[in-house]
């Protein structure tokens, strides 16, 4: 540490991190004597070749769940300042947060009724 200083240490780690993957890659290539052939690259579905390309647009059905998760996850942010002042404010803070959570819970129940949590 004293020899290199903080910048020197950071630089050493950076250079080592650059070299390590190159070294491992080179080692792997040196040990591997066979090259990957065209039939080996084809995706396996039981022995028949694919007829169309796999660039396929499909409905990412989990997006509703992902959005709902994000929305409710963000509400948790409000809990941090609340936790800080919770002891100072006392029971009144508890009641206030209870109201907030109740409103959120109604939202969850609504989403549930709208069947957003079902995959199909």
């Amino acid at each position, binding site marked *: 540490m004293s020899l290199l200083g903080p910048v020197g240490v950071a630089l050493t780690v950076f250079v080592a991190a650059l070299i390590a993957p190159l070294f491992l890659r080179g080692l792997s290539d040196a*040990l*591997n*004597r*066979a090259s990957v*052939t*065209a*039939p*080996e*690259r*084809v995706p*396996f*579905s*039981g*022995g*028949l*070749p*694919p*007829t*169309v*390309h*796999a*660039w*396929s*647009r*499909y*409905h990412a*059905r989990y997006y509703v769940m992902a959005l709902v998760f994000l929305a409710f996850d963000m509400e948790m942010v409000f809990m941090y300042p609340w936790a800080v002042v919770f002891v100072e404010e006392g029971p009144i803070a508890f009641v206030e947060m209870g109201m907030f959570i109740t409103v959120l819970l109604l939202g969850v129940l609504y989403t549930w009724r709208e069947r957003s949590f079902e995959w*199909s």
Partner: protein
Amino acid sequence: VVLSSVIGRLAAGADARVFAVAGSGASEAVRDLRLADGLRLVDTPRAADVLLVAGGIPPALAEPLARVHDALAHPRATVFWMPGVPPPDLVAALSAPTIVTDDDGIVPAVRRAHRELMTGERVSEPPVLPDEDAVPWRGVGPYGQGGSGMTGGTPYGRPMAELGADRDGLRLDVLPLSVGPFFPRFPSGLVLDLKMAGDVVVEAVARDNPFAEEARRPTPGLQPFLRALSQPVAIAELEVARARHHLRWLADALLAHQLGSLGVRVLRLATTLTPDDAEAVERLARTLTFTQVLRWSTGGVGRLSPDLLAGLGAGPVARASGLAEDARMDDASYGALGFEPIALVEGDTATRWRLRLAEAIQSLDLARRAGDLRTEQVGRVEGPRGTLEPGSSPTERLMAIVPRSIEGLEWGDAVAVLTSLDLSLDEAAAARVPAAARGVA
């Protein structure tokens, strides 16, 4: 060099990873390899060191077999397990193939091939097919996809999937996909031409049975039933064979549901099953019911209506949908034992599991009580998959409803339903060929 020899020696001590291809007459023997020490059957050739080709491979499957061979990563070796059947074309394409003709030598042969491969004594097999892309990269277009625009053109020379309406009212790609004939979760030889919208099967078309022209011996588990077509057979023998068959099916189904360890235990029970093991089977049935393993993953999935199955003689599949169809009812010997078929009503995948377990228990009970009693009816026998008649098998008749039973399901459910139908293209072919040509006494 030192490093690679150390790694090679470590790898040689590990279990041999085997991708097994079951030809005609070999599906049971291949499944039993799960009980062998030092082998591990894997689900994709990518994860395998050794390709095991067992049983008769008809010419129609020669090319898919070559593709499977070339899909194994290096180093790779192939072992052929050919008890009394001619080896496939692939043998000629390899320089030093291992061919095993007896049943005892197969596990040591696979282990040896794996060990020699890892220590470098055996060279990795070169590809059988030419090393060229089916449709080479052309590199035209702004995104290098061979056309213009994000979805235009033909990437790697393969056309893009076409558009179709999806279940949410959107117009998205419908991907044509052919699965099989060596897809490990399908019965060997089955090829389904599917159209997939995301993970939903929109359309399924089954190709012809590749084993149809093969006049081979059927799997050992089926032989008592085929014998019963032409002569009286001891009921005890038939019923133990039926219970074994159902447990073997259960082992497979558990594996398909990623419960492989339990599957191996069930398989071990199946291979040694006697009429006195009824208690063990009952305990197994209780465990599966109690843990709700079935209900959560298979309840309500793939419901088949009795109208669809009526008259197909589809055995357990029909009885799980409430049809009390069973050829055993017409046999006086079974009548003397007071046989009544079990029929459940729900008709979904979970019910087909439950029914087979209940039938296994019932079969062991019949076997215990039957003594020396023999079947009286010939020419029509209730096999473990349904009613067997000369020239007609339950699998053949069930194939007609396969597309309808999986269309509209998600892929995982479709595989679960296919597994629960217990198809065997091999059996379909064996039933079609007259017993004399098959060499069954």
